[in-house]
């Protein structure tokens, strides 16, 4: 079943007084099936973040459409968009985006509290997730008291607790040391094996090599895509590197 469908997405930024136009996305189309693990790669300025913001309904495309489980994001009313985002999407960010004013547990509860869930239900949902992520004994702590890896795992827990259709991850390993990054990627793989659909935007070849499919974006368009299929992480790593080299040296486009 198709979870996410992106059709002919275009985004043009206009400066405040309409002086100059910058085309961030020119024509992006792809789709994500249920249970997939997709990585989107591209250089800085290739439009990755813009794409993610549009998928997250934080930003609106100039033209084109995004369908989540067949529903057009553009038809959702402004008032309902936050609730929609809360219920269908989970987010993992490069800089964790945990609030210092809350304990880790409360940070994880935040989306559920916003949806008006009871404390009992929230803690019932949290238990299995906390066990899986190995954060059970740090829940009472505050973000500034734990390491980056622990923070990111809590952010993953916050994304998972609403049982979203799709988890969007924006450079999730960007602020982590290699060991913590490795741990997080293993975690993503496990979550994905449990059936969770994941979409990750990244710079890191290493991170992308864990995904089942890698999309390459260049100059606001999908340039190429790779399927992992039966490949090992190492082979995938090599293949992604080759593709990036080709892209950087201006190779012709191929499927």
């Amino acid at each position: 079943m198709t979870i996410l469908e992106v059709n002919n997405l275009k985004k043009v930024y206009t400066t405040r007084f309409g002086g100059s136009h910058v085309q961030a996305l020119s024509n992006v189309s792809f789709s994500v099936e249920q249970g997939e693990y997709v990585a989107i790669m591209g250089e800085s300025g290739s439009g990755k973040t813009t794409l993610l913001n549009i998928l997250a309904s934080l930003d609106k495309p100039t033209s084109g459409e995004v369908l989540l489980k067949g529903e057009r994001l553009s038809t959702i009313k402004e008032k309902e968009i936050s609730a929609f985002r809360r219920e269908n999407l989970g987010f993992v960010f490069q800089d964790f985006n945990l609030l210092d004013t809350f304990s880790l547990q409360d940070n994880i509860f935040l989306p559920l509290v916003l949806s008006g869930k009871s404390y009992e239900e929230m803690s019932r949902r949290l238990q299995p997730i906390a066990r899986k992520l190995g954060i059970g004994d740090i829940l009472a702590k505050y973000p500034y008291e734990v390491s980056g890896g622990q923070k990111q795992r809590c952010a993953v827990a916050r994304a998972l607790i609403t049982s979203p259709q799709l988890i969007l991850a924006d450079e999730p390993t960007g602020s982590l040391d290699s060991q913590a990054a490795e741990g997080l990627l293993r975690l993503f793989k496990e979550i994905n094996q449990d059936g969770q659909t994941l979409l990750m935007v990244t710079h890191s070849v290493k991170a992308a090599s864990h995904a089942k499919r890698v999309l390459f974006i260049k100059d606001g368009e999908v340039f190429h895509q790779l399927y992992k299929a039966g490949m090992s992480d190492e082979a995938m790593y090599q293949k992604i590197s080759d593709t990036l080299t080709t892209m950087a040296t201006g190779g012709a486009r191929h499927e």
Partner: protein
Amino acid sequence: MSRFFYAKLAATNLKKNAQTYLPYILTCIGTVMMYYIMVFLSKNEGLGNMAGGSDMQTILSLGSYVIAIFATIFLFYTHSFLIKRRKKEFGLFNILGMEKKHISKVLMFETLYVAVISLGAGLLGGILFSKLIFMVLLKILHFEVPLGFSVSGPALAAVPLLFTGIFLLTLLNTLRQIHLAKPVELLKGGQTGEKEPKTKWPLVMIGTLSLGGGYYISLTTQSPLAALAQFFIAVILVMVGTYCLFTAGSIAVLKLLRRNKGYYYQTRHFTAVAGMMYRMKQNAVGLANICIMATAVLVMVSTTVSLYIGMEDVLRTRYPQNIMITTPVPAHQSAEGLQTAVHEVLAQHRLEGKDMLDYRYAAFAGNQEGDTVITDESKMSNASSSVRQFYVIPLEDYNRLTNRTASLGDNEIMIYSSRNVYKEDTLTVLNRTFTVKERLDSFFENSLDRVLIMGNYYIVVKDIAVVKAMEKAQAEENGYDPSGYQYYLGFDLDANEADISAVYQDIRTAVGSDYPDSRIESPVAAKASFFAIYGGLFFLGIFLGALFIMATVLIIYYKQVSEGYDDKARFEIMQKVGMSREEVKDSIRSQVLTVFFLPLVTAGIHIAFAFPIITKLLAVLNLTNVGLFAWCTAGTILVFALFYAIVYRLTAKVYYRIVSWGTSA
């Protein structure tokens, strides 16, 4: 070249930080102006030569000390806030290769600029405005406004001295901070103090107890005399209580709320409780400052305004009759000469005394202990709440003034009090024991007890002989020259102030020679000095009120700005996690509102509890019109709240601009 470099860099820094430095410099200018004007007025010779002017200058110079102390604390406090915001900048300079001594040089230039601008503009403004303020003051005092314009030498000397000192102090403090810190710490300077606050139960206890104690004193103090001493204790207790409860109490309450899971994990309470905890930790002291300052402004302005408005009342309470003569009559003399003299003066002026009131009496103070009164002054305690004023009046005068035909035996008395109840059946005073024959529930109008501080007893005795005996016994006990008795004569006149004043002067000359110890009073004569004192207090109240409001405004502004920078990041995260823009805005607005109106509401509560004790203090100043005071207080609170709300709205704009900067709509 290098000297110019630092000077230039300092100028650029100030320009770049205009958003925070401009209000600071404006406040410096304002404070310089106010201090100059206050010193100018308190040292102005013309003012000193006017009737009552010197009394008022004492009040004003007191005011100038208050401004000096306040300016030091306040400018120091705001400057440390500025530096806290800029630590990152210094850290960057440091890392880019500037040594600390170079940074210090830049800072010295910056301070120099601020000092020169503030002193220059402040003195100029002060000199220009001093004339205006001077005229306003004279208007308040009902004095003639003289022409001319003057610059005060003493003020020109005092102002630079004080403010150079203040600026040096702030500079030294900044340099100390820069020298102690490591570059990395400087870089992170803006972000320290994020840890969750701990609940400090001892502080909560101390705060609750001292606040309760302060309120208790205010509610239970009965005697105005005691109120005078206890007011300051109450003020200090309430201040301590406010600081403790704002810092520790707020955190404790929020933590209790958080422990209640059913309450805490609700959409509306969740972000509010956590957000408030963070805010209170950052702002508790600043908010307590605002609260105390607001309370001070409210008390000061409402009391001085009601004293000024109620001056006619006060004059009437203090001087119930237009002409009032009180004199001791020596044993060998009678009061007849005085009566004749007064009537002659009235006849000359073709006026008739209305409500003519005269009586003979003896007056003394003593400590009442049950049915015994201690009148020996060496054994008396003045502070005790058992101090009573006794007025002994002969039956003859009492019957005449009340149209009664009561009779009394040798050792019988009738007793009356306007403020307490005499419960005993006998009264032992000055080695005599009297039997209480009657407790009166009313007495003739008199002007004996005008100070309104202590408890009082009016005692009617058989005849003038008893009065004389008691006067003598009292004088001998305390080693005074005995006189026969005291005599009072008072009346109103149906005439304008000028005529009353003329009568007053003539009576003074006519009576003075025969009765050298006589005291002749008239509200008309006292008016000028009353205006000088109460008008001076009124002026000072408004002036200091304005200063405090200026300070409050600045603190609010800085709070908003710093909150804005802190909230910006949280605002973005919450949106990403699934709160809508409107929800986030609402949540932040309600928290900011709570934070800023908490001090105002607390100040209101303080005022409500302070009301009883302040009424008693005003009674000492002869203002007994509680209704007037209540209205003035309500009015002051209203005006202040309005002002506060306007300031809040204006600064909130700055706040939202910071918060929404860069968030794409």
